[in-house]
């Protein structure tokens, strides 16, 4: 029997916003089956994965520590994605932001100045922007593909990090281990809830969400970005400058990723280490789409994604489940979301086409 997809023509707006919830529910159901197959009590496992990690003040705070970089980066990325500008290199922009911000803390490692942190944040944003400016320049000047250039610059940034911590920035008392010295107290983000690690970086993420929402919903730039993405021809007829949109979206996403890098090194890590980010720049791409490229959606998607990390660790501690469970859950979430998106756009038809639509179906 043939199965084919037929274009629905009209896309249901309700379903577009409902699909992330559907994906979450389907992931949970599939998770129950998965746990049952592994021979563990599914209810206990789901509780251990999604509830107990955040049932203590510490765990609850960790959700925001882990979610901060994801939300920051994803808010930035969602602008570009709406305008069909594909910045895949947030991981590199994060790394350069961390180096720029963290570099200041290392340069002034005896500083007690109150200005150190703001300067580090500014340096982080500028560092990320500078790294994103390279693909923006190449795209607007030579029409290179920003997907490739931004992605390849990730590896350049990681090599730069590796060079610095193996060389000039290595801790003089660290017995030759490739990591920097610890940052001074003045270079460490203040903690918001006493006894936890929840630092003020989360406020940056909330501010990014608020700014993003204002820009996209209330500002002419947001309008131009959306039109450029949905109907490039119309945008150029309306006189929107495409190059300007490319520059703005790349600089915004780069700056946000750079700030996320600075927040990571001056918040939870407090020094420069070989692995600053466990792939936040890439996970944030999933977060942006899970959040429907909307700042508020991204906020919740980022926290959900953070929860899957915490849950994976907790399931290891409590249930002796393998580390791979985290990846399986994240994969299922994305799979069900994409499947739902396909079904929103197309309807499934069984049997061969009755009309001349055959060529379309085969393509």
């Amino acid at each position, binding site marked *: 029997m043939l199965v084919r997809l037929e274009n629905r023509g009209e896309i249901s707006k309700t379903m577009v916003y409902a699909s992330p919830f559907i994906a979450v529910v389907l992931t949970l159901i599939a998770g129950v089956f998965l746990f049952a197959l592994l021979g563990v009590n599914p209810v206990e496992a789901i509780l251990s994965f999604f509830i107990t*990690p*955040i*049932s*203590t*003040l*510490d*765990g*609850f*705070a*960790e959700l925001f*520590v*882990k979610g901060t970089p994801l939300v920051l980066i994803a808010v930035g990325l969602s602008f570009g994605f709406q305008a069909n500008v594909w910045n895949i290199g947030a991981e590199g922009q994060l790394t350069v932001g961390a180096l720029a911000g963290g570099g200041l803390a290392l340069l002034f490692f005896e500083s007690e100045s109150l200005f150190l942190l703001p300067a580090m944040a500014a340096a982080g944003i500028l560092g990320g922007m500078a790294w994103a400016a390279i693909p923006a320049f190449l795209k607007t000047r030579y029409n290179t593909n920003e997907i490739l250039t931004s992605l390849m610059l990730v590896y350049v940034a990681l090599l730069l990090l*590796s060079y610095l911590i*193996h*060389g000039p920035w*290595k801790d003089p008392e660290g*017995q*030759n*281990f*490739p*990591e920097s010295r*610890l940052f001074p107290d003045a270079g460490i983000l203040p903690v918001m*809830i006493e*006894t936890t*690690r929840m630092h003020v970086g989360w406020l940056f993420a*909330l501010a990014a969400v*608020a700014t993003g929402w204002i820009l996209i919903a209330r500002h002419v730039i947001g309008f131009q970005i959306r039109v450029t993405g949905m109907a490039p021809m119309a945008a150029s007829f309306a006189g929107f400058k495409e190059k300007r949109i490319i520059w703005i979206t790349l600089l915004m996403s780069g700056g946000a990723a750079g700030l996320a890098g600075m927040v*990571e090194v001056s*918040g*939870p*890590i*407090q*020094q420069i*280490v*070989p*692995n*600053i*980010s*466990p792939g936040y720049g890439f996970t944030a791409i999933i977060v942006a789409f899970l959040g429907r490229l909307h700042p508020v959606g991204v906020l919740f998607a980022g926290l959900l994604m953070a929860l899957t990390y*915490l849950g994976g*660790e*907790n399931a*290891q*501690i*409590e249930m*002796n489940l*393998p*580390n791979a469970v985290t990846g399986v859950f994240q994969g299922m979430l994305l799979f069900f979301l994409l499947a739902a998106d396909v079904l929103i756009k197309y309807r499934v038809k069984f049997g061969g086409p009755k009309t001349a639509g055959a060529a379309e179906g085969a393509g």
Partner: protein
Amino acid sequence: MKLGKKLGLLSGLAAGVMLAATGLAQAADPLKVGFVYVGPVGDHGWTYEHNQGRIAVEKALGDKVKTSFVESVPEGADATRVITRLASTGHGLIFTTSFGYMNPTVRVAKRFPKVKFEHATGFKRADNVATYSARFYEGRHVVGLIAGKMTKSNVLGYVASFPIPEVIRGINAVAIAARSVNPKVTVKVVWVSSWFDPGKEADAAKALIDQGADVMLQHTDSPAPVQAAQGRGIWAIGQASDMKAFGPKSHLTAIIDDWAPYYIERTKAVLDGTWKSGDVWGGFKSGMVKLSDYNAAIPADVVAMAEKARKGIIDGSVHPFAGPIKDQSGKIILKAGEVMDDKTMLGMNFYVEGVEGKIPQ
């Protein structure tokens, strides 16, 4: 305004959740012992042996303990969270088993003064942070003798992780021992900047073989270099665990880390209330370092020589770093008749004669 309300709501929620949680934590009766691993428990090397130690603790102490572990924890922001998570969920003793967990362990220990921490291979201690490591270099001495006898090309390949004293000490121990039985030997080193990365480890091993190495040694955690050696028909020495299964023909022997006795002893100490911070550095004598079965292809006289050295290290008549030792430029750095003290060994940051290249600085 909106933001302030949201935050207020969050902290209110958090406080409520915390109250609920403190009730839960007190219910635990057996001592909870947590382990943090840098690789997967199935790495068949470093992490595998630490996990064997954990299993041994469960077997030895039965229902007096309950152990748990988290594997593949990156040495960065995540390490602090995982250690905190273990400390805040009622674990009374936590083993953090990689050098890069040093600062995170010390940081978390400050926040949880009642929890005992044990950090492997580090040098920062506190009242509730002890350190432990094994004298891997004793094993390196014996395998260096075997490698020196078995090589035909007189080139030993060494896949190394990070240029810290612990790793450099191993390279030097091999070079000194191999050259004591075969002065023509040189050691070539490739650094992979990772503890566990089978792809990089295999590439490094192949590059070394292309440069003429016919015995492969490693200070990384996966059996990939042993596999590469088997594939190209050269000898290999396993690391941390018996890696014979990955290269039955090539595998001459392996240096095995046996953490079980130490883990059991320290867990008992916490149960008895006698735990104290300190630094333990065990070798062949205490059983923390062992050798796996010798390959049948090793001639009997070489096995006899290796066993003599191993017993000599145990009774103290043999020291892997005994003078005269020369550095790369040929300058004597330890006079004949002297043996190197622990402090010098712990800070070792130079290559001895016979090692090629420079330490990455």
